[in-house]
């Protein structure tokens, strides 16, 4: 065995395209499917649908704020727009998209045929889908079916006492609560499934320290979902008890506390940031090595940093609450813990740069997005450290500076990584390459638009513009900045449209990809593109972190050095 090659099974012929079958039957197959790849794609498409809806909501808000004293939308509608935008993007765009990546890729990467619980997997997806439908049903059901259009308008973190029945009449807030509650059950199911799959279904030879970093980071993501969604579920149940059964959890008049809602929400809310960003790290950690033609720099340190991010992220939540007025001890603790989480995150940035250092970098679109990710995520982290300092936060909390900061994390970090991931894995999923030229147009338009919008958004924040205002007076010095911010949206929207067009065009006209177009090293590139339903005809056996490198370079395999 000592000098034997890793045993990788023979390849199988790609299944026929579905287009030759009747549409109803194809739809039926997709609806009843328990295949992790199809569910992954459904998660992903569902997330993209809501990404577009949330994007439209954001665009309407930016149109409203482009000039002073604008009356494009009423204040009520504006409140609904930012509530729906935030809720949609976090729960129904970002989470399904990262779950989609995990669902599709984790079993392929660890050499498994499916997830541990395929039917539970389908259940999780349909619960998430139901949550989104419930949330959007509020547009027609908020005041009963007879009322005029409505939607939740309490903000995505829904602070008490605004959510009490006295201030939120009608049912729009209830749709918000139940939608999130239901999608939370789906998230827990998916996390449980990802975790069990990784712990129990790895192929022979796939030790924990040989798993691709993508799998490691999704393990920590799943662990965070398991511990962080519970508090949200509990808080939503309490809010339902308050609203329907006359409970007093968040009712200050009966001795309840509005602040405890903030604690409960952010105990979920901050780990949630890492639930979303760890899968983004996961994508970047796979793309950068392949396009730098080097193995990842500092694998074990990356794993350690990921796990410590997981732990520290559970103890930083109240940095969202400095302006609420906590004791100075609490402030000091959360300043320190928040500063501490910058250390493992910084380690990661250094390791990605270390991977690129001295590598033969190939600037395909996927890699371009990763480079943009590195720069933007660094800046997002730096404004994060600024806001982590309580006195600075007292000055700028709830201003557009904060909005710019977290959009830098989510758009500049997570969405960029998601774009990179689609360009990288599209050939595997579809069997055809995405168009590079169109991709470069997408990249540059989106990056320029992103920087126009979110670089300049910091400025009105520093000038004192609070978030969530529907309009503002002229002559405050905010007009030019807001106009630039809104113009950036146009570039981003065109970029996203080009991306969607590219996805559709390449499905029919893209260059045939073959099994391994990027000369990559992880297991998913060994099977056909698209993979057969059973992934691998024979379960592979691996001997190092880069099984495909071993296969391609029998004269100098990795396992000799492990």
């Amino acid at each position, binding site marked *: 065995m000592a000098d034997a090659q890793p045993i990788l099974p023979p390849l199988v012929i790609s299944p026929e395209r579905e287009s030759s079958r009747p549409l109803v039957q194809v739809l039926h197959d997709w609806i009843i499917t328990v295949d992790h790849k199809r569910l992954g794609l459904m998660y992903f498409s569902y997330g993209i649908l809501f990404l577009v809806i949330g994007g439209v909501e954001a665009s309407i808000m930016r149109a409203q704020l482009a000039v002073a004293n604008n009356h494009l939308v009423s204040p009520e509608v504006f409140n609904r727009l930012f509530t729906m935008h935030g809720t949609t993007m976090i729960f129904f765009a970002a989470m399904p998209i990262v779950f989609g990546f995990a669902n599709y890729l984790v079993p392929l990467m660890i050499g498994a045929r499916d997830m*541990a*619980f395929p039917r*539970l997997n389908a259940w999780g997806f349909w619960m998430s889908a139901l949550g989104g439908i419930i949330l959007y049903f509020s547009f027609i059901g908020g005041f009963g079916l007879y009322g005029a259009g409505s939607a939740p308008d309490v903000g995505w973190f829904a602070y008490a006492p605004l959510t009490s029945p006295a201030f939120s009449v009608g049912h729009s807030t209830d749709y918000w609560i139940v939608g999130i509650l239901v999608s939370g059950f789906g998230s*827990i199911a998916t*996390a*449980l*499934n990802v*975790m*069990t*799959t990784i*712990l*129990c*279904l*790895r192929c*022979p030879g*796939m*030790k924990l320290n040989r798993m691709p970093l993508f799998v490691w980071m999704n393990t920590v993501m*799943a662990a965070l979902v*398991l*511990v*962080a*969604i*519970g*508090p949200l*579920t*509990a*808080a939503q*149940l*309490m809010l339902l*008890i*308050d609203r329907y*059964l*006359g*409970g*007093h*959890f968040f009712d200050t008049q*009966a*001795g*309840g*506390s509005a602040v*405890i809602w903030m604690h*409960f929400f952010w*105990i979920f809310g901050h780990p949630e940031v890492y639930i979303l960003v760890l899968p983004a790290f996961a994508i970047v950690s796979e793309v950068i090595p392949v396009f730098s033609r080097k193995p990842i720099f500092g694998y074990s340190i990356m794993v350690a940093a990921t796990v410590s991010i997981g732990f520290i992220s559970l103890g930083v939540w109240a940095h969202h609450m400095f302006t609420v007025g906590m004791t100075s001890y609490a402030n000091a603790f959360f300043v320190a813990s928040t500063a501490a989480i910058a250390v493992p995150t910084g380690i990661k940035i250094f390791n990605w740069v270390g991977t690129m250092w001295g590598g033969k970098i190939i600037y395909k679109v996927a890699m371009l997005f990763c480079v943009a990710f590195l720069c933007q995520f660094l800046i997002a982290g730096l404004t994060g450290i600024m806001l982590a300092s309580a006195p600075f936060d007292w000055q700028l909390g709830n201003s557009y500076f904060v909005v710019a900061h977290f959009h830098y994390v989510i758009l500049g970090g997570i969405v960029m990584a998601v774009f990179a991931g689609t360009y990288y894995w599209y050939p595997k999923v579809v069997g055809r390459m995405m168009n590079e030229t169109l991709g470069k147009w997408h990249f540059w338009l989106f990056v320029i638009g992103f920087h126009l919008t979110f670089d300049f958004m910091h400025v009105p924040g520093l000038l004192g513009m609070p978030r969530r205002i529907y309009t503002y007076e002229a002559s405050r010095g905010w007009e030019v900045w807001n106009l630039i911010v809104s113009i950036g949206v146009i570039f981003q929207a065109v970029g996203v449209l080009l991306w969607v067009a590219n996805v559709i065009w390449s499905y029919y006209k893209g260059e045939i990809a073959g099994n391994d177009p990027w000369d990559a090293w992880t297991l998913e590139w060994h099977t056909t593109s698209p993979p057969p339903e059973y992934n691998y005809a024979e379960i592979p056996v691996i001997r190092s972190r880069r099984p495909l490198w071993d296969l391609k370079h029998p004269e100098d395999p990795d396992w000799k050095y492990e």
Partner: protein
Amino acid sequence: MPLSANLRGKVGMWCLIIAESAIFSIFIVAYLYYAGKSLSGPTPAQVLDVPYFTSICLFSSSLTILLAEKALHHGKVKRFGFFWFLTIALGVIFLVGTGREWYRLIYQDGLTISTNLFGTTFYSLVGLHAFHVTVGLIGLTIIWLLTLFGAVKQEHSERISVFAMYWHFVDAIWVVVLSVVYFITR
């Protein structure tokens, strides 16, 4: 080496238990935080009695389900059915006890979920647990009916153990809820 694929039921159940524990811990934190902060009566000291008997019943059900698991593991299906039924009976006694307690609290002591903070936190925490007991009982009963129809065999012992983990979890949580509600804050 990876854990065996046969263990995936247990690993999955552990994950569910972790997620459920997170939900319970928030309700427990809320209970502790609001203890003694009610603006009006009744207070826990005035109305709560420690449910010794029903708690002992619930804790014993962990033992009987363990005996049932062992019996099935050794292929003694009849013995399994007996201890499984005993588990259901003990669980039902616990639920009936909770029901009687709530009836007394509502109709004699005038404590409802909207009376004061104590009522809100008490009914939601104890109710969340009772809900889990109910779900467990439904599962137990389905498995018992399947046993009566002869569908449960020795080869299912692994799966039965996975379900039993949930029941053990429901019992273990009661240790915490009982201590918090009836001893620490009363």
